[in-house]
């Protein structure tokens, strides 16, 4: 039982971080038709900026986190202005978008290495402090991350459901030309997408860094595949689907190590488990968890 509670809790933490990052990727895809390969590196950069300001420069953690969020938002907007806008205007194909996104990811990761140098980082928090809950030892830092992440997710969910710009975004993902015809300001939607993506990826990166303890420049890239899996699982382009996909994968990944499953699948196979889950779901429901079957002729 204690093991189950522990894993369930880990799963909720992993799931909420994956969900936040996945919503960012899904929104960017939904509105811009862009598979953002740099999403993982956005997260890493967010965590590195926050750690640099709070640990090396001694700024208060909350200020460092806010600055990190601003940096990632500005980065997203700048890249859109520099690259994605041009590619949209020249009607570039999927391959061009894929390869440019990869190029951006490579440049970002190498820049992080160059600016901050290699070697692992750590937030100035005590991740060994634990408390006992139903026989399980739960890290206080994990509980704080879980609370913060879930409030971010709830805020986001309300924002997407209630605000005009949230509705515009969902309309745009569903049918871009219809949304444009009905008077939705495309440029404004695009800007908001990058801002929301910036907030989510910076926070997800910082939270992951806190939960992990030590992290290095490959943190985001390692998470990118489960994030993509979560996005596809919950139907690509659907923000709520991505939330659901992230939570489901987080729980499956952690609970798969429970000993009742063939003595527990080794932790190093967590990413494999994520993709096996995705594979099984896609075989049964190729359009993803929340997808609607495309009409066939």
């Amino acid at each position: 039982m204690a093991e189950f509670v522990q894993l369930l809790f880990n799963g909720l933490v992993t799931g909420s971080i994956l969900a936040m990052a996945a919503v960012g990727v899904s929104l960017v895809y939904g509105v811009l038709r862009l598979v953002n390969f740099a999403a993982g590196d956005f997260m890493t950069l967010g965590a590195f900026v926050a750690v640099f300001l709070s640990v090396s420069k001694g700024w208060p953690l909350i200020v460092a986190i806010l600055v990190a969020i601003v940096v990632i938002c500005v980065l997203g907007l700048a890249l859109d202005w520099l690259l994605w806008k041009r590619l949209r205007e020249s009607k570039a194909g999927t391959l061009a978008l894929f390869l440019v996104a990869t190029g951006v990811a490579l440049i970002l990761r190498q820049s992080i290495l160059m600016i901050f140098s290699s070697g692992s980082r750590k937030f100035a928090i005590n991740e060994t402090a634990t408390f006992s809950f139903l026989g399980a030892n739960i890290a206080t830092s994990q509980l704080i991350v879980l609370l913060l992440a879930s409030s971010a997710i709830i805020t986001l969910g309300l924002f997407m459901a209630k605000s005009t710009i949230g509705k515009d975004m969902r309309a745009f993902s569903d049918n871009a030309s219809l949304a444009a015809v009905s008077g939705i300001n495309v440029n404004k939607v695009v800007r908001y997408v990058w801002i929301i993506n910036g907030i989510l990826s910076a926070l997800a990166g910082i939270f992951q860094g806190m939960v992990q303890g030590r992290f290095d420049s490959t943190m985001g890239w390692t998470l990118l595949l489960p994030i993509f899996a979560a996005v596809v699982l919950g139907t690509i382009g659907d923000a709520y689907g991505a939330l659901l996909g992230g939570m489901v994968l987080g729980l499956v990944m952690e609970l798969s190590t429970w000993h009742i499953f063939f003595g527990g699948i080794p932790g190093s196979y967590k990413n494999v488990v994520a993709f096996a889950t995705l594979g099984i779901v896609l075989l049964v429901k190729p359009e993803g968890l929340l997808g609607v079957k495309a009409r066939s002729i």
Partner: protein
Amino acid sequence: MTAFLQPGFWVFVVLMAGIYCIFALGLQVQYGLGGILNFGHVATMALSSYTMAILVITYNWNLYLACFVGVIMAGLGGAFLGLTTLRLRGDYFSIVSIAFSEIIRYIIHNSDHLTGGSQGSLNIPSSKGYASYTDSFNKVLMNIQDKIKPIVGSFASRDMALLLIVWLTAIILLTIMSFIQKTSWARVLRATREDDDVPASLGKNVFLFRLSSVIVGSVIGGIAGIYWALEFSILDPADFQTIVTFFAWMVIILGGATRVKGVPLGALFFGFLYAGTRFFQFPPFTWFDSVQRAYLRIMIIGFVLIFLMLKRPQGIFGKREEMVLE
């Protein structure tokens, strides 16, 4: 700077370009003909090379038989990937194909008793006490080296001998591919690139055509994996990261995405670009130390990818009309 002047280094660069040429040709079959965006191509190299190494080291197989089985294994991997995911939408397939290659790498990395795990092929269990799979092949290379010595003089080396074999294979495969381009199989594949419904309405099984192109591409990728393994004599799971697939994409884009004949040109261009950036001994590159310059090399690959896609999506040697679909 000394390596810059050594012929041995440039032989290595051309040899690697040959391996990338074969590897990228496998992608070209899938993208150039079928329009399939496979981003997990590196898995074929991992599968063929590790299968070969395990069969030779643990089970004492004959090297050539093991190579053959390794290449078949790569084809089976492609078949598995295609059967499970090719029915998905294009962008889903691309994401899942990356996952496929990463899963193969994770499994290799974590299966210590079979693949040697993170310590690479040196750690593959062997009855002989040492894990080497190149013993018999080294003799062949020595033979070739002796034969070419009178002709090429000081250029004769193990790399040079392998270079000849690799580029001979590349030329044979290129010839076969340009022949295949004219077959009805290739014509149907090209039709599926534009549209599913037209070939389907003509009674063609679009799925089977796509699947066969992924399998053919994976077999070619598997051949590249064998040469990779023979060149380096040891394997490491870290050799087969997703970035290698992107190197192959760059080769294809440089060569002009839909042209088979562009692939060797793209491969040579890429080979010299990737190796040549080592010798940027002038400002602004001298502002950085050697570790930073290693980061810079990968960054330059990123910049070239972005620049090509923005300015010349058809590649250096390609036709624009074939890339832009209106």
